[in-house]
């Protein structure tokens, strides 16, 4: 089995106008940089994106925003993006904000065949408006529904030709759930290896979820907030 495609452009060949796309990453950490750049080149319009953040001005999902390709964005925090702010205020884009744990669980549910679940998060807040609530063991819970997409763009550290993926440190974030919740999951990896080179006990995303895989050409790996200490910490 070989799911390898030659490039990001080939990997997204069928991402048409109006597609719903999940994109992994937390801030700029673990974002599918090569797939985003390819999507800007392709120019698909009227897209709905689901991603924790909306990138920053000029990077990540911010590139898609600047190119005017988005109709709607679903995420949890968009504080770093001034362009998005002006587009929301001008009514040029629809923005849905979801609590982060609810967002990640809705995606997990979408991949796991669970149409809805009950969570304590958001009870008594505007998040609960219009949603069914139920009591379990004396506490009120809110019903939340699954999220699914046409495509998931995920970024992994290593992947093999079959589509098995391994993530690195906090670059894992939303990538594993998103890989399970789309009709077509496309993985870009920093290192593409042969089947058998990854330890089967240490695979984070099993190959069944991944339809296409390629090694990214360029990783800018930009850091949003560069914080350092001067010397050894006091303990």
């Amino acid at each position: 089995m070989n799911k390898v495609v030659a490039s990001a452009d080939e990997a997204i060949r069928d991402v048409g106008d109006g597609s719903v796309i999940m994109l992994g990453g937390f801030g700029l950490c673990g974002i599918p940089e090569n797939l985003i750049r390819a999507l800007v080149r392709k120019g698909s319009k009227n897209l709905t994106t689901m991603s924790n953040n909306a990138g920053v001005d000029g990077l990540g999902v911010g590139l898609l925003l600047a190119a005017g390709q988005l109709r709607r964005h679903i995420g949890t925090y968009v504080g770093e993006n001034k362009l998005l702010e002006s587009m929301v205020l001008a009514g040029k884009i629809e923005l849905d904000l979801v609590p982060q744990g609810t967002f990640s669980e809705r995606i997990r549910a979408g991949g796991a065949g669970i149409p809805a679940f009950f969570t304590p998060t958001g009870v008594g807040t505007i998040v609960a408006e219009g949603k069914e609530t139920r009591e379990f063991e004396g506490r009120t819970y809110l019903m939340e529904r699954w999220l699914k997409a046409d495509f998931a763009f995920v970024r992994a550290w290593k992947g093999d030709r079959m589509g098995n993926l391994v993530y690195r440190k906090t670059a894992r974030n939303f990538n594993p759930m998103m890989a399970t919740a789309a009709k077509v999951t496309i993985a870009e990896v920093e290192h593409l290896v042969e089947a058998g080179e990854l330890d089967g006990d240490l695979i984070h995303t099993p190959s069944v979820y991944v339809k296409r895989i390629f090694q990214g050409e360029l990783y800018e790996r930009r850091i949003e907030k560069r914080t350092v200490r001067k010397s050894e910490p006091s303990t």
Partner: protein
Amino acid sequence: MTKPGKDVDKRERIVTRIARELRDGFYVNLGIGMPTLIANHVPQGMEVILQSENGMLGIGPYPVEGEIDPDLINAGKETVSEMAGTSYFSSADSFAMIRGGHVDLSVLGAMEVDESGNLANWMIPGKMVKGMGGAMDLVAGARRVVVAMEHTTKDGAPKILKKCTLPLTGLKVVDTIVTEMAYIRVTERGLVLEEVAPGLTAEDVQRATEARLVVSEGLKGMES
């Protein structure tokens, strides 16, 4: 005596007081901003494991120059380092751990808290909404929620109210409020004033607070 200190002094007092709530073996989530500073005040010899909701247990100090790793950040998107015994996991696993009540303590900032323990810290109507991030999940799920905030707004208006006016982050979720003026517990009988900062009286704290405070019989000075 009640002359307001500089913001840095206020923060230091709040942060050092909350650090005294830590216990050996605690798993703790520190919110973005002032709560993050608590990590610098973990008592000697105590092991506290810091959780980051973007998928990490075991946050270490900021890295030294040269050891910066773009794949290793905290929930504030700052570069961090890892402690021995660190683990990484997905966002779904991270919030399962939070919602499931496995995190002992969550410390976060607030714009308003009220006498029922309601919390508002994510949205001001009329201003651009940036999003709630993980705050709603943290307050709904952590075993204990401590609010770290300055007692009043910059204009001196109370932030501890009878009833929150801003959109809520969570309903009846706050256990303890720590400000530069006081240590207050949210209880069935209302807000109990347990400690006041040096140089202040219970009356001083009440004057800066809209909600009615029940003064604890064991009222004492706030240590830092």
